[in-house]
Structures are given as structure tokens and as C-alpha cells.
């Protein structure tokens, strides 16, 4: 590996941008492909698939044996609302290797006793969110049921292009939310990105089951192509 390739690789990773290094394992020839350049690459199908799956591996192309080494940022989950579902969701996401953050300005909810081992911010989203620098590799869920807390947080998540954005609430609740967010300038296209009701329809009842439904939907959005249809939604 060239010294400047290594430096570039480290710089991209520090900035939480995905990179794939393609190595010809016979000649040692190598090139670094940034996530933004994948679409125009001759190998784009293979590169896209490996990046979505977060999987490194060998491929054959034009008789060459190529190793695709995928460096994707660690996925993060930001949870707005230190509520009952969050208590089940946070450890579940951590077990799936997500870096998890919980934000709730209500100190009675955001207590370390209720959330051991989870970074917890007892602040309003407009204070807590900007320093987290959330990005494309962040899943974002708003679970408070309180528009004062959820709405500004959702606008921030849309702006940062999180790969998954979900909000708790029935269809009716969500329709009202869409009206409010539209009044604040959000476009129809961006609002269509919010998954609400949240989670895959697996008949979830308890907070833990709803957490599973949410993580299942997040996993699908992380791993499946962007246009792959998901199954019908639950009414959580």
C-alpha cells in the first residue's frame, strides 16, 4: 500500500466516510475508492453490494483476482426520548455493534439508573444533537410522543441525511406531525423518508418486541438496496 493511500484511508475513516480499497492480489496494484465515487466506477455493482453488507471479500473481474476491503464507519443510533421502549432498544442496538446515544431533556427520564452503559444527554435536542455530528451512517428514532422534543430533532435528522429516520405514533399522529413539519419548511420528499408508524410489522406488543421491530427495520434499511420495498408497517 502506498504511503499516501494509507494516509488518505485514515483521513476518510476519521471523517466517518466509507472507503473501499481494491487490491489486485497477484500484482499488488491498488486503488482507493471513496463512497461518493462508487456510482461512476466500472465495478459499481460489486462495490455497492459489498459496502451495503459491510463485507470485505474477493471478486474476479476481467480475469483479475481483486480483494475489496470495505471500511465503513461504525453505525450509530440516536434515540430521542429516554422512554420505556428506549430502555429495550439501546442495549439491543449495542449488541448489534451500534454506538448508541439517548437524548431527553426530561431529567426524570434521562437518568443513569434507567440507562446504565449508554451515553445519555439530559438536554434539548437543539443543544445535544449538533455536537454529535450525526450523518449518513446514523439511524435516528424519535420516541417521546412530545412534538416539542421530537419535531426539532426530526428536522435535524432529515437535514443530516440519516440512513434511517423513524418516529413513534399512529398514522393519525404522524399525519399531524407531517403538517407541523411542513409548516416549518420541510419538503414532501424529505418527510416521506420518515418511517411512521415505526418498525416492521411483526405484531410487536411489549417495549422489547417493539425494539426488535425497530431494529429489524433499521437493519433492512442498512443492508438492502435503497429502493427495496419493506413489508407493511406496524401501528406502534
Amino acid at each position, binding site marked *: *500500500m*502506498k*504511503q499516501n493511500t*494509507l*494516509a488518505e*484511508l*485514515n483521513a476518510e*475513516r*476519521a471523517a466517518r466516510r466509507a472507503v473501499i480499497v481494491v*487490491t489486485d*492480489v497477484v500484482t*499488488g496494484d*491498488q486503488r482507493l475508492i471513496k463512497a461518493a465515487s462508487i456510482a461512476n466506477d466500472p465495478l459499481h455493482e460489486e462495490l455497492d453490494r459489498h459496502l451495503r*453488507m*459491510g*463485507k*470485505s*471479500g*474477493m471478486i474476479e473481474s476481467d480475469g483479475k483476482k481483486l*480483494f475489496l*476491503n*470495505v*471500511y*465503513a*464507519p*461504525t*453505525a450509530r443510533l440516536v434515540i430521542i426520548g429516554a422512554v420505556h421502549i428506549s430502555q429495550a432498544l439501546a442495549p439491543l442496538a449495542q449488541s448489534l*455493534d*451500534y454506538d448508541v446515544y439517548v437524548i431527553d431533556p426530561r431529567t426524570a427520564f434521562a437518568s443513569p439508573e434507567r440507562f446504565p452503559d449508554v451515553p445519555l444527554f439530559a438536554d434539548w435536542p437543539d443543544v445535544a444533537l449538533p455536537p454529535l455530528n450525526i450523518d449518513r451512517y446514523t439511524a435516528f428514532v424519535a420516541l417521546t410522543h412530545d412534538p416539542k422534543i421530537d419535531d426539532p430533532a426530526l428536522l435535524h435528522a432529515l437535514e443530516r441525511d440519516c440512513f434511517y429516520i423513524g418516529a413513534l405514533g399512529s398514522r393519525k399522529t404522524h399525519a399531524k406531525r407531517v403538517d407541523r413539519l411542513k409548516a416549518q419548511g420541510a419538503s414532501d420528499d424529505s418527510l416521506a423518508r420518515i418511517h411512521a408508524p415505526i418498525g416492521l410489522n411483526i405484531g410487536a406488543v411489549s417495549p422489547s418486541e417493539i425494539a426488535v421491530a425497530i431494529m429489524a427495520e433499521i437493519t433492512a434499511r*442498512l443492508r438492502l438496496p435503497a429502493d427495496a420495498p419493506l413489508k407493511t408497517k406496524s401501528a406502534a
Partner: protein
Amino acid sequence: MLNRDEDILKAAETWTKSGHGVAIATVVETWGSAPRPAGSSLVINDDGTFLGSVSGGCVEGAVVTEALDVIASGKPKMLEFGVADETAWNVGLSCGGTIRVFVEKVGNS
């Protein structure tokens, strides 16, 4: 995804900048129950210091020896390790899998 190897490649960069010869060994293929997935890497410098893991400890010693050769020659090498078996391999994987490890030098050209 979910790769926590950032520090290893950072160390490789730091070693290179301070004038060390450095090699990177990367698992490129696995069969059977391999201990570390494709993409796992080990970085080695010319005084034998290494960081990371390609097998969870089974073959690191052999990889480091080969890496010192690669640092000296500048030529990349492909290594293969299978089940520990005196006739086939000097060192092996007790878990029964097979792994292929690509070793390359970090260099200017």
C-alpha cells in the same frame, strides 16, 4: 461494517512517518470456521512490533516472520494457513478453517 480497526491503520501510518518499514497483513479469504473475517488486518513494523489480529493468535507468529521478508523485499505475498498439520503447515488453525492472508509493504511507490 462496524469495523473497530481504526487504531491499527493509524499506527501503521505513524510508524511509516517515523521512518519504520511497515507491512500490512490482511485476511482476504476464509473457508470453514475461520476465527477472523475477511478484511481483518495485522500491521507489523521492521522491529517486529505488531498490532491487530488475523486469526486470534494461531498464526500471527508466522505472519510476522513473513511480513519482515515482505518489508525487506518490497514484494507482496499471499499466505495460506489451514488446520495444524506437520506435513502441510508449520502452524495452523485449531478451529479447522483455512484462511488466506495478503501481506504488502507500505511504501512510497
